[in-house]
């Protein structure tokens, strides 16, 4: 199945711009990455609602929280290797402990950052964010779902983190499907449960659903709150589980699901495809990185074979 590549970042910028036209409470606090996050038009049309903080992510996080205190919905925009990586303790206190209406947008997550190398391939963001009380964590599958998630969080007063990626990625989220905070979507029915978050899911989605590759693909874009009901129901049925994510194994979706399984006395055959305790490295083509770190199409096919 061939799909069109679209930009998650562009979708974010365009969606926020559209929302800001009617929702005058939407503000952006940006740490010098406006063009990369497609916010130039927002800044031009709504200059008073676009606050440029410069390369100062700690200050940005507290400023965003203070601004939110005056009744605004604030989007804090940067790359995830800077925000929430540099400013984690500030997010913990200023945003989470103070329960501020701030939406943290972290682009350039995962090995997908490709040529930029290890410093910019943020593989620990989900771990950092899901551990914080009050924080909600989302990882959209593609540009279509990004628009839905950004709209949904703009209507919620809670702090949240949305994980974005650098390259254009295949559009595979069914446009008619809706996104609800705390719900995952079953994209295909099958004999092996496959959980994923983010654009890496297209690898599974593109595997033709044959007798050998019978996957029950579940999009876990709402990592926290996690849709434990849907996930457990599927695993109870299949008894086989693959978790696929462009993130560290430690602290990612796979670990969150593992504890869920143990708490519910489930022990499916389980393969977790994630980056295992390593830093990334440069490659113009991220699929080479996916293969190298064991989260690419080859590893996925092998995992399916093992579980069959």
């Amino acid at each position: 199945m061939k799909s069109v590549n679209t930009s998650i970042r562009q979708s974010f910028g365009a969606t926020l711009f559209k929302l800001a036209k009617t929702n005058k409470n939407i503000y952006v606090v940006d740490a010098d990455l406006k063009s990369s996050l497609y916010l130039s038009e927002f800044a031009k049309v709504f200059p008073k609602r676009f606050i440029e903080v410069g390369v100062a992510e700690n200050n940005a996080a507290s400023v965003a929280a203070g601004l939110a205190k005056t009744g605004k919905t604030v989007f804090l925009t940067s790359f995830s290797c800077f925000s929430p990586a540099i400013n984690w303790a500030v997010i913990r206190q200023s945003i989470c402990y103070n329960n501020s209406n701030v939406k943290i947008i972290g682009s350039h997550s995962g090995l997908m950052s490709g040529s930029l190398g290890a410093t910019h391939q943020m593989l620990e963001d989900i771990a950092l964010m899901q551990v914080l009380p009050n924080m909600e964590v989302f990882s959209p599958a593609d540009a279509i779902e990004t628009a839905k998630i950004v709209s949904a969080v703009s209507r919620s007063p809670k702090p949240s983190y949305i994980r974005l990626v650098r390259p254009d990625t295949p559009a595979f989220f069914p446009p008619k499907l809706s996104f609800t905070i705390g719900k995952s979507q079953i994209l295909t029915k099958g004999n092996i449960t496959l959980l994923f978050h983010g654009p890496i899911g297209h690898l599974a989605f593109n595997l033709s659903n044959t007798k050998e590759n019978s996957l029950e693909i579940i999009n876990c874009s709402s990592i926290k709150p996690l849709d434990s009901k849907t996930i457990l129901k599927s695993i109870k049925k299949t008894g086989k589980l693959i978790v696929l994510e462009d993130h560290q194994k430690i602290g990612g979706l796979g670990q969150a699901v593992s504890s869920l399984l143990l708490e519910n006395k489930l022990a499916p055959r389980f393969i977790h495809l994630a980056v295992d305790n390593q830093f990334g490295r440069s490659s113009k083509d991220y699929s080479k990185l996916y293969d190298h770190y064991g989260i690419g199409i080859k590893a996925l096919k092998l995992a399916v074979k093992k579980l069959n």
Partner: protein
Amino acid sequence: MALSTSDLKKLSWQLRADLLDMVYQNDGHLGGPLSSLDILNTIYFSDIFKFSKKSPKPTDDNFILSAGHLATALYVVLAHKLYFDKKKLATFSHFKSILEGHVSTTVPGVSYSSGSLGQGLSFAAGLALGNLLDKKNKFTLCLTSDGEHQEGQTWEAAMFASKYKLKNLINIVDHNKYQIDGSLEDIMPLDDLAQKYISFGWTVKEVDGHDYKKLLKIFQISKLSNYPTCIIAHTTFAKGVSFAHFDYKYHDLKNLDPTLYQLAKNEISKHLN
């Protein structure tokens, strides 16, 4: 009715007495809270800024305590403001008390929970910017400690406030020259703090942080600035308890010797009559 200078002075000793009791009974910070008390007293009990009696109102000016360990001082002030029952001071840091060990929004009148240093000025700047954009005629006051100026984020905030011309932002630095492990001079000197803020584009005023007449005047002037204002209040560490003056070990108390407590209490009581 605003309190006169002599009334404020008188009240400050009652506040000190209550603070000492609270910290003696429950342990907690002492040196910084005592040095910053006259500043807080001026903010809340003069009529320069708007802080409603009995319960805080949305139209009040904003106060942000960046140095969350000064909570004991703020709690005593807010109790005297009648924002909550003064009896609750005895429950400081107890399980299920509203009075958390570091400043918390669980206390009526507190709008920012803090404890990790260096973040409050940024939060205050965001708040001030929001009010400015909404054309709200409100001041945002922030109380920082001198020690927390070693945190880089404070200077990120200083840059930011200057860029956005936050004339409604007033940062008061409780410059008592001590921090948890010693003097600032030994740990990490701030050198010329005033010059630093001036070079960041702020209006800077220096004042004796225990002189009510001067504090009142400085606060009045700071409302007229076209730039963010930094008031460097030179204070005495543990002001009012002579044996603890200039002794960093009294940054916080744990099991204070009863005879020392009595000594401190007697010294404060002298001012109450």
